[in-house]
């Protein structure tokens, strides 16, 4: 094995990948897209339709309209303050309906016409006995439910007050008696090095869920963007006969090792950049110490393992195929075990020590993602499980690199048809 040659290959691979469009996208365009999206959101919110929602109220009993009008005024007065933090909202403007001797159906039809002509946004019909009959809300905008919900809430409050009064109860007393309680979510009590008992700390969703998930997503993102590039690079070298020149200078194992190292270096660079950015943002948001250094180290370990495992297999596929389509078809089943953990994130987060979680974290193709998640979650995976997972993945990676090397050696020189899976297996065990 010539280390100098391996490093030369790694350097060339690193340079090629860093200059590729995919790298530019992941490093420049992705943050730009994220910034652009928040900018777009602001732009969109500035253009939200805030024209007044005028609605008619059919209130035959005459008991409810004034309450609705008062509440609408209160709400509209608050809108200016709310707009500073949230999406701007339109004011609600009620209009009393005078039935004036018409039949109720005539009134309903007339109001419907006005809604159709957009003179009104909606109309509501409050029965004399709302406890017995339903309140009816009519509109031509079934997707917009703010007004309907606001009306329900407002009338509900009003009706409740009425009921308290009818029962001769003091509304403020009822409120006080029916207040709700909530359980606070805490960790566990501990004893520190000096023997003092330390109280449990409040659990924090960011620490408990957001950080572990962010780690897993990042790892997934790096592997999913780098691995196909590795496959493409091998395929391109093969179809443009570069491999033949290279194999005249170094062994297939040296070539594969160099390429793997180059792409591991690229993903470590990406990882370092994203980590720095992520930690800076976290610090700004008051989560400076939320990511323990051990977790960062595990992230890098599993990133390297995942890159080696999936990188070696995808290089073998690149070497065995003769066009991108065939290679992509073969890549799909290979990437499946990488994608699987993404579908079971929630069950693992909810019970990190369940049989499913432990099983998947010890199944080598899934270990990098699932074990990383378990290391980040609370309770963290026991050290022996992490060690076994890492060792199994390392062993599998070794087997994959060896098998991929065998396929690589034969595949690179076979022009014409892409190899079938059966052929690749034969190549692995060929003399």
């Amino acid at each position: 094995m010539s280390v100098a040659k391996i490093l030369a290959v790694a350097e060339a691979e690193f340079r090629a990948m860093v200059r590729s469009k995919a790298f530019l996208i992941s490093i420049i365009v992705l943050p730009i897209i994220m910034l652009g999206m928040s900018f777009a959101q602001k732009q969109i919110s500035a253009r939200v339709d805030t024209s007044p929602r005028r609605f008619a109220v059919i209130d035959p009993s005459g008991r409810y309209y004034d309450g609705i009008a008062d509440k609408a005024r209160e709400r509209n007065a608050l809108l200016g303050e709310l707009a500073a933090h949230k999406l701007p909202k339109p004011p609600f403007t009620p209009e009393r309906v005078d039935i004036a001797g018409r039949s109720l159906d005539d009134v309903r039809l007339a109001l419907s016409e006005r809604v159709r002509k957009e003179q009104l946004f909606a109309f509501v019909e409050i029965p004399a006995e709302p406890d017995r009959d339903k309140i009816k809300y009519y509109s031509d905008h079934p997707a917009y439910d703010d007004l309907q919900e606001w009306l329900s809430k407002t009338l509900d409050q009003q009706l409740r007050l009425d009921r308290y009064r009818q029962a001769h109860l003091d509304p403020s007393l009822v409120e006080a008696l029916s207040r709700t309680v909530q359980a606070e979510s805490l960790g566990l009590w501990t004893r520190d090095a000096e023997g003092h008992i330390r109280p449990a700390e409040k659990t924090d969703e960011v620490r408990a869920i957001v950080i572990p998930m962010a780690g897993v997503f990042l790892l997934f993102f790096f592997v999913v963007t780098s691995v196909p590039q590795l496959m493409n690079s091998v395929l391109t070298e093969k179809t443009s006969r570069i491999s033949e020149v290279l194999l005249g200078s170094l062994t297939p194992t040296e070539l594969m090792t160099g390429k793997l190292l180059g792409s591991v270096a690229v993903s470590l660079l990406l990882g370092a950049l994203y980590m720095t950015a992520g930690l800076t943002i976290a610090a700004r948001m008051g989560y400076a110490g939320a990511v323990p250094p051990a977790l960062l180290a595990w992230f890098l370990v599993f990133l390297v393992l995942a890159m080696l495992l999936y990188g070696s297999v995808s290089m073998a596929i690149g070497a065995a195929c003769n066009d991108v389509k065939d290679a992509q078809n073969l890549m799909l089943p290979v990437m499946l075990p990488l994608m699987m953990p993404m579908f079971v994130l929630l069950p693992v987060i909810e019970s990190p020590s369940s049989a499913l979680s432990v099983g998947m974290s010890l199944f080598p193709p899934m270990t990098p993602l699932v074990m990383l998640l378990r290391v980040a979650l609370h309770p963290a995976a026991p050290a022996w499980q992490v060690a076994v997972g890492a060792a199994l993945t390392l062993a599998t990676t070794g087997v994959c690199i060896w098998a991929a090397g065998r396929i690589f050696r034969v595949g690179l020189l076979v022009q014409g048809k892409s190899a079938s899976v059966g052929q690749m297996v034969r190549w692995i065990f060929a003399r």
Partner: protein
Amino acid sequence: MTTNGDAIAIRGVTKYFGDYAAVDDLSLSVPRGSVYGFIGPNGSGKTTTLRMTMNILFPDAGEIVVLGERTTAAARDRVSYLPEERGLYKKMTVREVLRYYGRLKSVPRARLDGAIDAWLERLQIADRAGLKVESLSKGQAQKVQFISSVVSEPELLILDEPFSGLDPVNAEALKDAVLELRDRGTTIVFSTHDMSTAERLCDRIFMIFRGKKVLDGTLAEIQAQYGADTIRVRTDGGRAALDGMAGVDKVVDQGNVQEVRLSGDPQAFLRALMARTKVQQFEVTRPSLHDIFVRIAQPASGEVYA
């Protein structure tokens, strides 16, 4: 350790692909400092032989000693290979590609840039050093590829169709460079389908057909093997004037000139021909390499055209 002073010594080598013997019990010696031409029809085992020489493939039987080294990779840095076409990274600049290939041949960095500049200058493409490979013309790319294979100053240079697709000026430039390398002591093996290039450049020629060696020697030795039975004629009657003439085994029509393989007496043939048409040129000669190639590779089809 050197073995017999040969650059390549192939002894009883057989290589199977499945049940098919791509190379069958082949023995060959390529002396150091020679220019050795490898010829043979497509699929006859040339590339397999070259790949085994470069340690990309391994023989199933027999032994290959390259520059005196029996172990697989020991001679790797002293041997260079130039494939027929392509083989360059399109997105790299000319200098980057040459540096990369040089490093893969373990050329010390201190010496590498000097060697690259000298070769770029020698082949008149120094102004292209900073350009991406994809922007080069075919001729320029082929020159870059040639430089990539010689920048390490190999003791053995293996070229696969090095001049195909080149215009005469570029082809001459590369031929001169090959001869210059030979003069400096580099052993050159090149495979080609261009028989006239092989005749002009090679000290020795080796032909492989269906995995077996069918020719091996200097051009004169090979031609002597095939006798002086070839007559080159140029007549007013052209190809048609030769129809039905006695003693004519085969006619290779080259347009204005016809090559006739004759089994009878050349003088009698000349008299008969003069009776038929006006003869402008009549030369008793040895068969060309092209003719010998065709005789071997196409023995059964249309032996006699006359």
